[in-house]
């Protein structure tokens, strides 16, 4: 198959909508445009029925007992905001302490920062060099004032999958609510809120080949019944937890994406893991001092994150960006101008955080694309190392740590 450029390998930032998803959505923009809360005419009934189907599909995908436990939101960020702020406000009488980790996505960390300004206390549990959170570190962070634990199911940068079941078990044992940020995990790997002891779960459609602008928060109704203070006041939609007219076409798309993900997850995961492993082999067999980030055997199947010593991430992307879309943990590619806090949290040097590149494959990635991107990456790294003063010094046998750097 001929290659089509540019090649997209940045599928943990977003994914293209599956054509089957778009097809399912289309009628809900035009002839089936009703408001699902219109209880007294067929337009409303039709819309409500479509939302119910989508809710059921999503519930099935994450193992929820009751579709009513799902609250539709605008996406992962809103779901995380609702989960953390909603619990904090509702359970403030009970406690004022939250346990989370240092590798949560920005939304999780920033909500916690805000809650701290409002008087809550937050413990940020560190991560081990392989990207896994030590369950004992979580246990020792818990106090008798802890009301919530919030942990990422799978990391957006390094793809590391946490031992969610063990964390869920610990939460039950301590009587603490457990929120899992599963935006990167749902639809990619098996997620089961019942078996895993998850009380709240955030997910989003656009990472599973659905539309942008819709997500969901799972809120457990039984054992325990989780209550949330709403962030949005209004018509009392979504059992009062999230007012606002439901975006029916987006929700229908989300439901269709969930249905496809459930049916194809196993085969797709196997296919992507093989392609990912091939990409990893091409690169690691040709480039010295390239370091794999995150534990290899507990990774999302489509994720590959490598730090290339002595070259800076943005310059790598620049060498490829006309033809291939990737992302980097380099400061120069982030809005905050800080290098990746996830790679830094693994204990890697800041230099290696600046040098990290994330390849993320997706449903439409082809073997030809993998071969091409692998070869081109190797070429670009070699070219940049030829012009890297650090590589030159290292090859001369100079230990870079012994140099007194004059930072600007």
């Amino acid at each position, binding site marked *: 198959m001929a290659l089509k450029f540019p090649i997209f390998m940045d599928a943990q930032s977003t994914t293209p909508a599956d054509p089957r998803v778009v097809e399912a959505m289309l009628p809900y923009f035009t002839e089936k445009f009703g408001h699902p809360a219109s209880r007294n005419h067929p337009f409303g009934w039709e819309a409500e029925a479509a939302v119910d189907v989508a809710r059921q599909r999503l519930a099935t995908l994450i193992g929820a007992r009751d579709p009513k436990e799902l609250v539709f939101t605008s996406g992962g960020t809103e779901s995380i905001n609702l989960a953390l702020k909603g619990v904090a406000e509702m359970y403030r009488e009970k406690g004022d302490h939250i346990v989370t980790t240092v590798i949560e996505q920005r939304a999780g960390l920033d909500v916690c920062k805000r809650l701290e300004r409002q008087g809550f206390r937050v413990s940020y549990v560190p991560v081990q060099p392989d990207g896994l959170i030590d369950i004992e570190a979580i246990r020792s962070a818990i106090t008798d004032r802890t009301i919530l634990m919030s942990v990422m199911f799978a990391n957006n940068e390094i793809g590391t999958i946490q031992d969610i079941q063990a964390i869920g078990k610990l939460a039950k044992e301590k009587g603490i609510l457990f929120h899992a940020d599963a935006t990167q995990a749902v639809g990619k790997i098996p997620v089961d809120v019942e078996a895993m002891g998850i009380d709240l779960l955030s997910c989003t459609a656009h990472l599973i080949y659905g539309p942008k602008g819709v997500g969901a928060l799972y809120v457990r109704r039984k054992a325990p019944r989780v209550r949330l203070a709403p962030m949005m006041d209004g018509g009392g939609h979504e059992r009062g937890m999230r007012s606002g007219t439901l975006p029916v076409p987006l929700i229908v798309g989300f439901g269709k994406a969930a249905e496809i993900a459930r049916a194809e997850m196993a085969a797709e995961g196997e296919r992507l893991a093989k392609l990912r492993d091939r990409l990893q082999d091409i690169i690691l067999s040709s480039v010295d001092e390239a370091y794999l980030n995150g534990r290899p055997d507990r990774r999302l199947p489509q994720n590959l994150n490598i730090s290339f010593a002595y070259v800076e991430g943005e*310059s790598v992307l*620049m060498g490829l960006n006309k033809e291939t879309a990737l992302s980097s943990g380099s400061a*120069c590619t982030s809005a905050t101008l800080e290098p990746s806090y996830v790679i830094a949290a693994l204990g890697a*040097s800041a230099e290696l955080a600046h040098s990290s590149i994330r390849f993320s494959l997706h449903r439409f990635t082809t073997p030809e694309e993998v071969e091409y991107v692998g070869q081109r990456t190797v070429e670009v790294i070699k070219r940049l190392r030829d*012009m890297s*003063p650090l590589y030159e010094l290292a090859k001369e046998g100079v230990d870079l740590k012994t140099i007194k750097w*004059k*930072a*600007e």
Partner: protein
Amino acid sequence: MAYSDKVVDHYNNPRNVGSFGKDTPGVGTGLVGAPECGDVMKLQIKVNLETGVIEDAKFKTFGCGSAIASSSLATEWLKGKTVDEAAKIKNTDIVNELKLPPVKIHCSVLAEDAIKAALADYRDKSATTAAAAASK
């Protein structure tokens, strides 16, 4: 972020990549930046000891595309200048030439620092050589 055509050109066709022997007479070396900041530039000049003119310049840079372009441009500008003229190159000249956005101004500052460091190293070495010659 979109890059200016000049940044892309310098990135794709960097001028004067390479190294001189540090101890070669007339060579001045500047090594600035820090790996943990994501930018390190090594810039070298080779000065004609008779005329005081920079005959050649080379660089190696660890950094983003704008850092590579800033140092590549600096080596182009240094060639043919006297040591005194070279000291007048300002980071703002680099910003204007490469049309660097505000977030990339530090790349031009680093390039100016690299030029200054190379010139200072050259002067130190000539002073030492002169002192050694005088004491003979």
